[in-house]
């Protein structure tokens, strides 16, 4: 069977930078960070730099959309973001050939708190139950697929959806990823001593760790172009076989993930013109990615990390960062790396520090995560010029 093309036909983001794609892109292009110092005992015993969503604003929007208290905060965020994505589209979400693929690391983890859990059915702490609540809201008849692969979940979800559409199993797939800030996750990263003392600085010589954030991203993929010029060409996920919480010093998994994705896209490595790295701003991650980019021979290719805008949004990261990369390709610009001032990795990779006007065709998105996993996906802008 001929493989079908996979088009990106709609995108939305809800995050600290805003409640729509437009708001998010506007703030990114204005080089505004969503990371700030917060004092909230529900999230952290100490003051914390992170990128929280404006929940007051969201609650008003949830009310407007009649999203009742039957749904958890996480579920409402996901449903709202998906709803916004479909707003102007004529897509039958109740059709058998439409599927939801959900990406999240911790979903409704806040329900570990007995007081909170009392308000919901007991199984809602399970990711499959949260995902069903979300897809059922839209009347979708298929059990949703749930990807929970640490910080690469978003990219794995995009790759999974791409395979399913490409092989003809589904026509439309809603790739929906999200995670919300929680004491559970924040305390864990604090115990790892891996959080930055300020706004994170990817690839910078003075980088000192990551900033956490919360967000939801929705990418609608389809075998029908519906006027879109953006395609997902291929992707891959590989393990370092090194350590569960630290990356391979020689970027093993990163290298295989990137080369496999490029091969699956029927491209040569040298075809890649724009790279969106994972770039969490930890000393080890950024160095690993620089080494990996070096191994690929792509030191001259413009590369950025978007982590200083949204923080690290875990299950949403792979999706919202891909969306920003795609949107920037459409606008014929390359987005800069907020937080980067002084080159701080051993390879002379080409970190984008100011918005660059450029029309590119092939872009590579990368992600890495706990368990030594590395994922990648290749996007094509058919209107771009090589």
């Amino acid at each position, binding site marked *: 069977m001929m493989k079908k093309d996979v088009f990106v036909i709609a995108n939305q983001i809800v995050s600290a930078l805003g409640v729509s794609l437009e708001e998010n892109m506007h703030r990114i292009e204005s080089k505004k960070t969503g990371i700030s110092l917060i004092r909230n005992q529900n999230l952290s015993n100490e003051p914390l730099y992170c990128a929280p969503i404006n929940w007051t604003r969201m609650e008003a929007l949830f009310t407007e959309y009649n999203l009742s208290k039957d749904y958890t905060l996480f579920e409402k965020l996901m449903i709202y973001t998906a709803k916004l994505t479909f707003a102007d589209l004529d897509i039958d979400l109740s059709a058998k050939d439409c599927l939801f693929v959900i990406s999240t690391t911790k979903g409704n983890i806040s329900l570990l708190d007995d007081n909170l859990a009392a308000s919901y059915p007991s199984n809602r702490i399970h990711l499959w139950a949260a995902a069903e609540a979300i897809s059922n809201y839209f009347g979708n008849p298929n059990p949703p697929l*749930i*990807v929970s692969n*640490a910080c690469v979940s978003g990219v794995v979800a995009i790759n999974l959806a791409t395979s399913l559409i490409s092989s003809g199993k589904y026509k439309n797939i809603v790739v929906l990823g999200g995670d919300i800030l929680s*004491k*559970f996750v924040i305390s864990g990263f604090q115990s790892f001593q891996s959080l930055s003392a300020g706004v994170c600085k990817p690839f910078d010589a003075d980088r000192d760790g990551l900033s956490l954030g919360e967000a939801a991203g929705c990418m609608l993929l389809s075998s029908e172009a519906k006027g879109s010029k953006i395609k997902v060409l291929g992707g891959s996920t590989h*393990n370092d076989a090194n350590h569960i919480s630290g990356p391979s010093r020689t970027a093993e998994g990163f290298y295989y993930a990137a080369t496999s994705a490029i091969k699956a896209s029927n491209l040569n490595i040298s075809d890649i013109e724009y790279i969106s790295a994972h770039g969490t701003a930890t000393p080890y991650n950024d160095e690993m990615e620089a080494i990996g980019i070096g191994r690929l021979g792509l030191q001259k290719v413009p590369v950025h990390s978007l982590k200083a805008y949204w923080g690290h949004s875990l299950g949403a990261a792979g999706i919202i960062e891909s969306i920003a990369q795609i949107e920037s390709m459409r606008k014929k610009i390359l987005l800069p790396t907020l937080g980067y001032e002084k080159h701080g990795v051993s390879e002379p990779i080409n970190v984008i520090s100011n918005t660059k006007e450029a029309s590119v065709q092939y872009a590579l998105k990368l992600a890495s*995560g*706990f368990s030594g*996993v590395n994922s990648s996906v290749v996007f094509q802008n058919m209107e771009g010029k090589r």
Partner: protein
Amino acid sequence: MSRISSHIRIEDFKVWKNGELILDYNETRELNKFLKAVYKLLGMKYMKFFKMDSLSKMGLIGAELLLDQNSLMEKYKAEEIAVVLANASASLDVDRKYYNTIKDAENYFPSPALFVYTLPNIVLGEICIRHGFKGENAFFIQKELDSDFIYDYNEDLLLQKDQNAIISGWVEVNADSYKAVMYLIEKEEGDIKHLPNNIKSLFLTQN
């Protein structure tokens, strides 16, 4: 057509390999002690095992059982060996244990050794690290195993993604409730055809 070259089941304090009961553990009803007994039965010497949460221990033991006497690294390249697993409870078992280290304000000592396991895909990493596998990884959460889905996903890895062997299956741990059914898929070796119905049978038969 790809084949299932070995399969294991860990359930109810018993262990089966390729349909044969190899351990019927009677000493205690504690999962941790049971898993340690299997570890010893396998003659493993791997200190990291004892730092793992129950999900990772179970997956690691399952892989060890599958690969006993079968050195995949001699047959295939590291980057061609994949691990694809699914379960219903994600990492909820250890999530609760980690939560206990932070929920009480008077006794707030978040444990990094527990936190690192609060992601279901860590078990994939532990299997890959133990055996040196650098192939594809995926972890899916499902109410029950969808054998059609996992069959398609794995066939796609074998046919389109240059994978030549896959450790796959279901590894579920949630307090006292646990079940692991894992199988090894290879392109040419094995008696059982890799098909959704055969995968389903592995789950249903109480050997």
